[in-house]
């Protein structure tokens, strides 16, 4: 008795009822396909969030003012100095101290405004106009599509130059090349020095509705020489962000004369920790999607049990004939087990193909990212499902008594 022959009988059994075999296979196909596709979607959305954060700069730390300190006014009551210290230019310079802040690569003071710019009758309210130092570009991963970024010289001379984002460029200049053109903000003409490469929009925010000018120019004409809105700090590497965050905190705590117990009047936002949080969130999301898909795989497995039970009942007489002709129990068991495993394996293989094809398309705005392990796992599980869910009906077939089986109508 060769396994090849048992296999042949199993294939013949499946082919005898093609529609039923196909429908049972479909159950597994959907299960396996769903596991692969949904895990890919979960992974894809994770990758998308990560990419968005990467666009902002992974080495990036943002220092901003925090009024109050968790709303309890603790800082207000403790000291003699002003309740909330403003971030100043000297704060930014202090962060460049190589001894106290060895992990800080650059610190760019930032002032922001949202003025209306005009060019030959066209007007556009710039979403965010940032006045800063040249280091800002590398810290925040802005790249230029054309032209040049603002230079140290521009800052020193307070030149009226501006680098604009794609949205600003299209709104004001249309198809015209904006480089060298003069746009007006509050009647002050700015020369467009460069156009930023597009970062795309993240959710509702248009990242390209953006412009950068020298800090000094902005202070001269728009914001005045008061406090900074932010200090954008670039750490030396993405692994150094936590160290840099600690250094910034200790330097600013000292400079703002805060008691050790007092809540800080500033806030350091670490892009890396944001990344970690978001990746753990998307991981949960992926697991959840995978679990839902796994349930459909189990349902497919139950479909196999169901169909195999029907098959065994229907073919009781055939089983009786085979047994009378001398088929050992193992041969009958093998035949029905192989049928079940074949159903699930074919379903699994087609499911892998379906999952791979499905992953080529965007699902709910997310480009799925295939996880190879999910393919291997889903396929292996589908094979095991055939074995597990097929063993009960196959065993029932093998145990049939030949006389009763032959009498079965």
């Amino acid at each position, binding site marked *: *008795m*060769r396994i090849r*022959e048992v296999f042949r009988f199993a294939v*013949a059994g499946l082919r*005898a009822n093609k529609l039923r075999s196909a429908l049972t296979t479909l159950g597994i196909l959907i299960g396996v396909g769903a596991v692969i596709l949904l895990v890919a979607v979960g992974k894809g959305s994770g990758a998308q969030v990560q990419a968005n954060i990467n666009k902002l700069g992974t080495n990036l730390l943002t220092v901003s003012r925090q009024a109050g300190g968790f709303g309890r006014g603790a800082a207000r009551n403790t000291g003699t100095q002003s309740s909330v210290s403003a971030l100043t230019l000297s704060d930014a310079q202090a962060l460049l101290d190589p001894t106290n802040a060895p992990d800080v690569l650059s610190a760019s003071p930032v002032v922001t405004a949202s003025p209306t710019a005009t060019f030959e009758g066209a007007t556009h309210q710039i979403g965010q106009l940032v006045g800063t130092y040249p280091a800002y570009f590398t810290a925040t991963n802005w790249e230029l599509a054309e032209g040049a970024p603002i230079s140290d010289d521009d800052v020193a001379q307070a030149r009226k130059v501006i680098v604009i984002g794609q949205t600003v460029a299209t709104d004001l200049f249309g198809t015209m090349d904006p480089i060298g053109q003069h746009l007006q903000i509050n009647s002050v003409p700015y020369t467009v020095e460069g156009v930023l490469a597009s970062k795309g929009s993240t959710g509702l925010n248009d990242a390209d509705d953006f412009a950068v000018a020298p800090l000094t120019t902005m202070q001269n004409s728009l914001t005045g020489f008061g406090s900074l809105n932010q200090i954008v700090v670039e750490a030396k590497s993405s692994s150094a962000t936590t160290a840099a965050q600690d250094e910034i905190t200790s330097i600013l705590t000292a400079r703002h004369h805060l008691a050790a117990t007092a809540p800080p009047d500033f806030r350091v936002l670490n892009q890396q920790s944001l990344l970690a949080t978001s990746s753990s969130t998307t991981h949960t999301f992926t697991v959840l999607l995978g679990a839902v898909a796994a349930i459909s795989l189990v349902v497919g497995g139950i479909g196999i049990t169901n169909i195999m039970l029907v098959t065994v009942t229907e073919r009781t*007489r*055939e089983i*009786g*004939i*085979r*047994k*009378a*002709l*001398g*088929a*050992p*129990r*193992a*041969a009958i068991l093998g035949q029905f087990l192989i049928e079940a495993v074949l159903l699930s394996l074919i379903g699994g293989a087609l499911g892998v193909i379906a999952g791979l094809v499905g992953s080529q398309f965007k699902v709910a705005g997310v480009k799925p990212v295939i996880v190879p392990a999910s393919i291997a796992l889903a396929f292996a599980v589908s094979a095991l499902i055939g074995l597990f869910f097929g063993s009960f009906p196959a065993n029932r077939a093998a145990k049939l008594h*030949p*006389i009763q089986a*032959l009498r079965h109508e």
Partner: protein
Amino acid sequence: MSGAGGIGDPAGLSGVNGASGVEPVIELTDVRKTYGMDGTAVHALRGVSLTVPAGDYVAIMGASGSGKSTLMNIVGCLDVPTSGRYLLDGIEVEHLADRQLALVRNRKIGFVFQSFNLLPRTTALDNVELPLVYAGVGTAERRRRARAALELVGLGDRMGHKPQELSGGQQQRVAVARALVTAPSLILADEPTGNLDSTSSADVMALFDRLHAAGRTIVLITHEHDIAEHAERAIRLMDGRIVSDERDGSRGRLSDHRTEHRNEHRTEHRSASQGSAS
């Protein structure tokens, strides 16, 4: 276990032992079969002793409920007796486990059923090959033997046909081919003409007669006298006991001589079986 060793014996597969009748194929000694438990027990067989020598052509007759189906199941190794001894081709089968019984059925017995019992959607050739598949015979050898068997039953031109494309008589001839393809020690036919018209019945019975002439051991189970008349020996069962066992010649007067012959034959066969058992 003791029987399993003998099953692989190629001599046992040769089947055609000649009509000498020296070696008994079937040896039943006081076989009893009881269904159910104490209170509701049904005694299907109440002590049957029977010896069928090789090459014999036996008809087992009896009304329904006489125990002939039970006897057929036990002789066919589809069931085991509650008590008693059964030697099939020298193999003690009454204590064999499921697996060994399957082996014995495969190597020693060729079944022909009333309802043909061919696999549906399977060609005649594949149906005839089936017992050889379970015997582990290689593809080429299997095909050759199945073709030979089909040609023997006169269906050489219908090998590729499926059961539903064949007439009842042809289906039963395929079943006969399947029964003899393994060259079994015993061909066991359970009402082989029960579902056939008279012409097909005659065809099938002619086939059995030819097989008998070629030296096969055949046991027919039937309730039809004209079918039983083909056999050389008729055994009549009633209420789980053999009530008559008659050889050729007297077949035509079965009913008349039943009582006279009964005791004589029973004694004869019991002593014969005891002789070879010891």
